[in-house]
């Protein structure tokens, strides 16, 4: 049973990681990265590494997406500012 669980978690991780690398648009990629965080946490738990899974949950599902989205938000705001120099957001 554990083997089956490991294989499932590994497959989920591989598929999500591949998609994350292939997703071109940063916001969509951020969602996929959050997914990747979940899959990795699942994999780590199956591999009996709860401490690591806890870290991954914190970093993968909260911190990294927040960082990426804040970056994108700043970048977008700049784009708007460049297009309409007299108006923001």
């Amino acid at each position, binding site marked *: 049973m554990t083997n089956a669980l490991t294989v499932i978690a590994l497959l989920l991780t591989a598929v999500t990681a591949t998609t994350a690398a292939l997703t071109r648009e940063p916001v969509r990629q951020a969602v996929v990265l959050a997914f990747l965080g979940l899959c990795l946490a699942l994999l780590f738990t199956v591999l009996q590494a709860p*401490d690591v899974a806890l870290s991954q949950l914190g970093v993968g599902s*909260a911190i990294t997406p*927040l960082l990426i989205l*804040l970056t994108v938000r700043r970048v977008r705001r700049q784009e708007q*500012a460049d297009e309409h120099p007299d*108006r923001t957001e």
Partner: protein
Amino acid sequence: MSRTARLRLFLAAAAVLAAALITAATELPGFGGHHHPYGERAVAAGLARQTANIISSVNFDQRAFDTLGEESILFGSVLGAAILLRLARDEGKRRAAAEPVLPTTRLFGATLLPVTLLVGGYLVAHGQLSPGGGFQGGVALATALHLAYVAADYRVLKRIRPLAALDVADALAAGTYAALGLIGLAQGAGYLANTLPLGTFNQMSSSGLVAVINAAVGVEVASGVVVLLAHFLDQAVEIVHNGENR
């Protein structure tokens, strides 16, 4: 190089790399093998030091120097982000605007915030006993504060976030970690030696220095992540180019 040339070059090289990795994988001991000499020694050493969570024992006692380096990376990144995301000469700050949220979300955020703080504190406090520890708990604590941003808006977060104090706390915790090592040095047992009383197995007060370092790491991670995110939030929400309208 043109884009296709680059891709071809990469794919050719990646094929070699892939072949090498596959060959290496077949020569590795099979998945789930029983040969872990260092791991077994680490378990014995951790139990001898009255630490129930062996991972914490490895992180904060046996390989505490690694973790000192890791916390310094965090500290350095917080300082680095502060320097990189500082106000440029041609930029100013504007007031953050209120942002719309559903009333249920707001209420939920207000309820979840203390719960998350509690969970974070719990994870830090039990680091030497159960899964979790300074880092995991610290991240949860930092995330808790940012519920104020995602469930309300940036102005609320700024009100409940003692940024100046956290900035100092981050540096102090980083310094404390490095300084804690000197205790062992002064006692002649070596840098970062666990010379504190070890306590009883599976109790909150067990494992000596591990618990203390764990707490310092918790403080550093929580405050460091908040400060780090504060710089990003300032950029995303408040800082504008002087040419931009406010």
